[in-house]
């Protein structure tokens, strides 16, 4: 990421200066160095010894230190008083403590650091996995969206069927209505004809009954009686 040129301000964002003013990218942060600068006897950096090595060899700085110490003491630029004794005791205790408990404290601090690192790493891995899963889901959705043609075809078929069903329903309704009207007309005609027939029959019967005179009635009754007698004779003969 450091090799990329700094991005220029995009036209959409309202910025008056470019977003990254330096080449340096702040993330990912470079890891801390493993060990600090070398220090000898806990007080003097190693660079001092290296600085004096070409001219005086290995014992040079120690000679310098001894000479300085003796000079300070002899000129009493460093005064020996009660504070010297106190400093000596304190230093002894401190050095003893460091030598004895140093490694344990270092191990404890390392363990704390390890836990922090593990937590951060776990979070990072989890985030990466979540994003990976999101990417896969997205790809799946894209693949699903490719099948939209089938969906549209199915929908078109549905709509066509609905239209067809509606059309046929209306057709049936029209047929029924027309049939009802025609049946009505037919029923009217049959009714009329029936009424005419009945009326005619009644009229004919009435006239016939009217036309039967009493003379004709007597004659017909006598004839009937004669016929009955004849029939009864033939019935007696048959038995």
């Amino acid at each position, binding site marked *: 990421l450091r090799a990329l040129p700094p991005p220029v301000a995009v036209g959409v964002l309202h910025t008056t200066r470019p977003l990254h003013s330096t080449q340096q990218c702040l993330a990912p942060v470079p890891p801390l160095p*493993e*060990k600090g600068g070398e*220090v000898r006897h806990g*007080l003097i*950096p190693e660079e001092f010894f290296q600085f004096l090595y070409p001219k005086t060899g290995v014992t040079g700085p120690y000679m310098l230190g001894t000479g300085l110490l003796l000079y300070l003491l002899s*000129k009493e630029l460093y*005064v020996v008083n009660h504070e010297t004794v106190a*400093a000596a005791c304190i230093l002894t205790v401190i050095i003893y403590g460091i030598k004895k408990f*140093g490694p344990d404290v270092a191990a404890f601090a*390392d363990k704390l650091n390890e836990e922090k690192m593990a937590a951060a790493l776990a979070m990072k891995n989890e985030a990466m996995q979540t994003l990976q899963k999101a990417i896969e889901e997205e790809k799946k959705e894209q693949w699903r969206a490719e099948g939209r043609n089938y969906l549209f075809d199915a929908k078109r078929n549905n709509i066509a069927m609905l239209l067809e069903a509606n059309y046929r329903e209306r057709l049936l309704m029209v047929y029924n209505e027309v049939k009802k009207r025609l049946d009505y007309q037919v029923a009217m005609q049959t009714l009329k004809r029936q009424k005419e027939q009945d009326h005619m029959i009644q009229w004919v019967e009435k006239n016939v009954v009217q036309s039967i005179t009493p003379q004709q009635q007597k004659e017909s009754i006598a004839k009937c009686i004669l016929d009955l007698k004849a029939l009864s004779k033939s019935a007696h003969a048959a038995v």
Partner: protein
Amino acid sequence: GPLSERPLMEVRLGELHTWISTCNFSPQGLLGAVQKAWSSYCTKYIHVRRGGPAGISMLLAGYCLLSYGWNYQHLRQHRWRKYH
């Protein structure tokens, strides 16, 4: 690199005079120099993964020396001998 941008450790003894002449002795310059020195000390000895006693012990030793220097006039009166 050019003389004024090199850190003090990389300046040779002969060029020390010219290096000091290129220094910025205004308050902001001094403050900037102090901040740079402090931050370089921190990155070298304190902000490491496995540091030791060296980081703070050097600071404490420096503090001891400084306080001795500040109290020297008072300590001079407790000398053992008058003439050296």
